[in-house]
């Protein structure tokens, strides 16, 4: 009896009908005011399931970046909570949280601070305790995923904008994050680099939250979109439907490029 129990227990967790994994990201009633009193977020609720790709849309000053900085505990919520893969964002879990949430910042020059591409890609995993051959393998895999392997020993200074963006992505991929958060990934990219980045992002596995004003990019990459304005979620649904709602877009200062219709 006993031994049979012990045999079935691990099987149950390993089987495909195991209980669904916790959502990659769960934000509940998140409110935040900056120290100067400016209230940036008024109770945000957002759930991103594992493997989903979600676009976070909103005009300038809507609170998008403030929300992003809550996801890995750089800002601490005034009220409400954030959990990543079931783990609450709290001081004692910060290290694990920051491994799970991979933020790619808007300006790759802010992200890439070490003398060579390879060292920068190794920085994250080294901080999370990976070393030696494992670290090397992580760096290779991340650079392969973004097609930048042959640039490993170069300085980020001598790369093009598109290449820098891809390396910045690799520095986060090497941490093997649960959720990838991209802040305006398409800014300052020429059309070819923009398309190449999109193709690469579509090939990546992790759950993705993409903050952007670039509505066609959201449509191309994310089946679901969330519109944030004035610190609240004002719409959440299939990207194509949201972009077809001209009244919604107009109300929240979002605009499709000239001649574009979803």
């Amino acid at each position, binding site marked *: 009896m006993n031994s049979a129990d012990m045999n079935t227990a691990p099987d149950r967790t390993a089987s495909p009908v195991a209980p669904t994994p916790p959502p990659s990201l769960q934000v509940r009633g998140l409110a935040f005011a900056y120290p100067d009193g400016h209230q940036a977020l008024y109770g945000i609720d957002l759930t991103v399931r594992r493997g989903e790709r979600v676009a976070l849309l909103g005009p300038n000053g809507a609170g998008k970046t403030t929300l992003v900085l809550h996801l890995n505990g750089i800002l601490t919520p005034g009220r409400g909570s954030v959990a990543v893969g079931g783990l609450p964002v709290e001081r004692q879990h910060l*290290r694990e949280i920051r*491994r799970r949430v991979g933020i790619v910042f808007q300006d790759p020059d*802010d992200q890439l601070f070490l003398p060579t591409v390879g060292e920068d890609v190794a920085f*994250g995993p080294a901080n999370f305790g990976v070393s030696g051959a494992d670290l090397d393998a992580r760096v290779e895999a991340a650079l392969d995923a973004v097609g930048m392997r042959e640039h490993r020993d170069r*300085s980020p200074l001598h790369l093009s904008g598109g290449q820098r963006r891809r390396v910045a992505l690799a520095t986060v991929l090497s941490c093997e994050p649960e959720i990838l958060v991209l802040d305006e990934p398409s800014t300052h990219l020429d059309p070819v680099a923009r398309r190449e980045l999109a193709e690469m992002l579509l090939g990546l596995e992790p759950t993705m939250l993409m903050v952007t004003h670039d509505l066609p990019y959201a449509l191309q990459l994310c089946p679901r979109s969330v519109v944030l304005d004035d610190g609240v979620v004002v719409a959440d649904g299939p990207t194509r439907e949201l972009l077809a709602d001209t009244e919604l877009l107009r109300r929240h200062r979002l605009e499709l490029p000239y001649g574009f219709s979803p």
Partner: protein
Amino acid sequence: MGTGHAHPLHLPGSSPVHRLPAEVKIVAAVAVVLCVVATPREAFAVFGGFLLLLAAVWAVARIPPGWIARRALIEAPFVVLAVLLPITGGAPYVEWPHVGQLGLTLSEPGLLGAWNILVKGTLGVLTSLTLAATTPLRDLLLGLQRLHAPALVVTIATLMLRYVDVIAGEARRMRMARISRGHDPRFLWQAGATARGVGSLFIRSYERGERVHLAMLSRGWTGRMPQLSQQRTSRRQWLAGLSPVAVALALAATGWVLA
């Protein structure tokens, strides 16, 4: 590992000197400079010996002496001070050989002081240039880290190495934007816009610093740079790298005996 485009003070190569680990070269360079400084200034010939020692290192590292000499001009501003000493120094005085009616009375301790500054300064600059010529900047950082330099110093130096070009680029773009709008600062009273440009560059760099810090925190930074390389330095490498130091020590000792 190179950093792509080289720094102007670095001469890429694959000589035995280039291949030595950076920490060995740092220790050797500091030790040689200490020997030079410890040599009494009256031991004139010994300084020639130091120069020969450096020339030998350049030969092994295949650095053309002219290449080093051009970069040694960095020292020029400091020479001015040395030139003043013989004129402003105290007694006893020596007479400069007369040329027509012109005579020059020079202070003897001043002359010796000037020689002291000039020769030790030059040898110090040449030693540093040799280190810089054979070691890429990022290897220097690696060397400092292995020598257990304070983590904060290594972090700051690493960030400087990365961002000095970013900030210079930003300054260049701001300047171009000013010039494109007809700014043509030729006189002092027109420098206001440039000064404000420097101010806004400072603010921008400060803000960039904050963003870089946030991005570092997001990747789990805890205030310590991860070890950049796992390679170990062998005893042979230390011995090879420190052999010029032995020569320098012998030279300094000779100097004391002679004086």
